[in-house]
């Protein structure tokens, strides 16, 4: 594993929020490395800054200082369009609350990264192929009977499987999962995790998993711990 290249690197990331003219520091210079195919668990108590760090790594929240490199490119020095392209092509997100678009069916939700990444002409041209891939993915995730269902017609576990299919659809090298089972019962959560780990191994994805669950963290190759805006074991040995 140690020979694998680094796909995601954060160096000295600092972030503070301004509340009533006072700066409230959240991240105090966090470092993190994630190698290709690596499973990294990020643990820490509530309020430790995990979500903020995840948003910075996911190119959604700009850090006050520090760098985030994705496949060697300094993401926060890019323009808005460049960062958006990077997010679309290189990052897959799985959220605790699924975050599916209510007006779209399961297949259409899975197609969202392509809908965003391709222009109308290109999308229409490749529609059949894309539909086929999305359907195949959902069938593999056990949702054969749910392809045309909308999120409100799906159970929590089914929604999270659709969200996972959406995150994987574009074949991104990095998958960021923020407590993916936090909103599911144990049994359903276990099934989703099995699917997540299986796909991660099969695709050689770099997985950054944020969790409170020690047993889940144990299933990762490395565990980084965060406390009061500082991170331990973020860098590879």
């Amino acid at each position: 594993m140690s020979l694998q290249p680094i796909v995601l690197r954060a160096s000295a990331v600092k972030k503070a929020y301004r509340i009533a003219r006072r700066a409230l520091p959240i991240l105090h210079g966090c470092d993190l490395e994630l190698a290709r195919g690596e499973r990294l668990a990020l643990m820490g108590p509530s309020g430790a800054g995990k979500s903020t760090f995840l948003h910075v790594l996911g190119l959604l929240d700009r850090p006050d200082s520090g760098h985030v490199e994705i496949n060697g490119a300094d993401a926060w020095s890019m323009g808005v369009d460049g960062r958006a392209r990077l997010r679309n092509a290189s990052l897959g997100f799985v959220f605790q609350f699924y975050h599916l678009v209510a007006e779209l069916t399961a297949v259409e939700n899975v197609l969202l990264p392509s809908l965003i990444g391709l222009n109308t002409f290109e999308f229409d041209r490749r529609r059949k192929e894309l539909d086929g891939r999305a359907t195949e993915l959902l069938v593999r995730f056990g949702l054969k009977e749910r392809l045309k269902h909308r999120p409100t017609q799906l159970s929590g576990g089914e929604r999270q499987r659709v969200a996972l299919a959406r995150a994987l659809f574009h074949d991104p090298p990095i998958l960021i999962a923020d407590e993916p089972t936090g909103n599911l019962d144990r049994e359903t959560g276990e099934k989703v995790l099995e699917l997540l780990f299986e796909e991660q191994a099969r695709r050689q994805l770099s997985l950054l998993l944020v969790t409170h669950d020690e047993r889940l963290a144990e299933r990762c190759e490395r565990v980084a711990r965060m406390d009061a805006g500082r991170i331990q074991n973020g860098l590879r040995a």
Partner: protein
Amino acid sequence: MNETETLTEVTKSSALLDLALALGGFALFSLLVVAVAYVVMRVLFLAIPAPAVVRFLSWRYLIHRPTNLIGVVGIFLGVGALIMILSIMTGFLEQTRTSMRGSLSDMILLLPGTEAPRRPYDAQKILEVVRADPRVEAASAHLSWPCFLTREGGNSLLMLSDPQRSRHAFVQLAGIDVEDEKTSTEFHASLVRPPTYGESVADPTAPFAPPPEYDSSMGIPRASVILGDQLFAAHRLRRGDFVTLIIPVRDPQSEYGFAAKEREFVVAGSFRSSENEMDLERIYVERGQLARFMAGANEEDELPRGAMNVSQVLIKLRNYETDRDATQLELYDALKDKRLIDSSCQLATWEEFRGPLLGAIENERVLLGIMLSLVLLVACFTVFAILSMMVSEKRRDIGILTALGATPRLSLMVFLAIGFWDALIGAFLGACTGVVLALKIDGIERWLSAALDVQIFNRNVYIFDTIPSVVEPLAVGAIVLGAFLCTLLFAAIPAWRAARLDPVEALRNE
């Protein structure tokens, strides 16, 4: 149930069926418009290199959120009403202009009443000078005089005591020369137009010839008159009937300076102009006969020397638009130089003559346009409100899209596109409906009046017998474009707000 009640029931159910069919047709038409909008969308987005999600998601938001329909309906109503009302007002203006021009010709030389012992105007010489101008196509002399109309065994006194009907008694006598009138005004057209209530003259080429119904064995040769269609009907006349006309004439011996003269005339028939007011208030008579009547001479006598025989000269130009101003100036000077008219005379274009009425209608048109534009503005505010609400509701979706690779510009485009569909469907549907309603307004009004048993458009109040309407393609285009741009402008504000949303905040919004 008697026969009348049965008939009423049948009429009502037929009207309901018509209404149901019309609503069904409208629903089908709306579906067609949505389908057309969808095709437009597909074609348009193939031409624009926008991310596919803009088309996909905006359309999906539109059809899954019934509140969006409120915006569409608002724009539809605003555009439809604006087009329909402006078309009707334009129609009113055009129809008024046409009618007035038809009865007045292009220019009118007003010759005020002469006071004795001044010599009267010489109609023949004035006409010679006028016709000598190469820009003049035709000219005719008129002798107009007020009169009171009654008939043997009629109810004139009853009419006088009734303010609604007294207008049928006080009318205007227009003395004309048939051949001249045919070439310079719409007189001939009004004779051959099928009457609504009256009876046409027996021979339009000789309209003042005694009608076949006139019994000449009575031995008194009488002059003929032709009455306006509605005046004819108001007095319940038939062709060949007698009417008595009473006119005021100057009488220096009288205490008040005038006396009344009366004479019986034969009704030769009726005319129907395109102006309701004319049909209610005008009686045509031969100019020579009116001059004899006013001078107290018999029908077959020579016109006494010095008798008044002209009060107006109507002039038709070959090219009114280009020659109007120059002709008006030069002709007036020429007539004055030849001492045929004096400074009390006036040569006015028909527009100057009817300026106040035309101006009033034009003002109404502008005011209605402004008021209905406000309706459209309210519709745009509705779109703004709905989209603002939607942006608040869809904060999380905006966060999701951003996480999946959308730029702020893309979020803006998704919500702007919803405004675009609102505008496209609403404006297109409104334009089609407005144009159809404008073109069919007269039939629709008649049908609605019959179905509701209420007279919506009182043709006796207005000066036309149909609701006029002129659809101006340029105006329709301007309204549709205006509605479109206005909607997009109002949609741009919430769309811009969507673009400025912090995706992290949006994703936290659980």
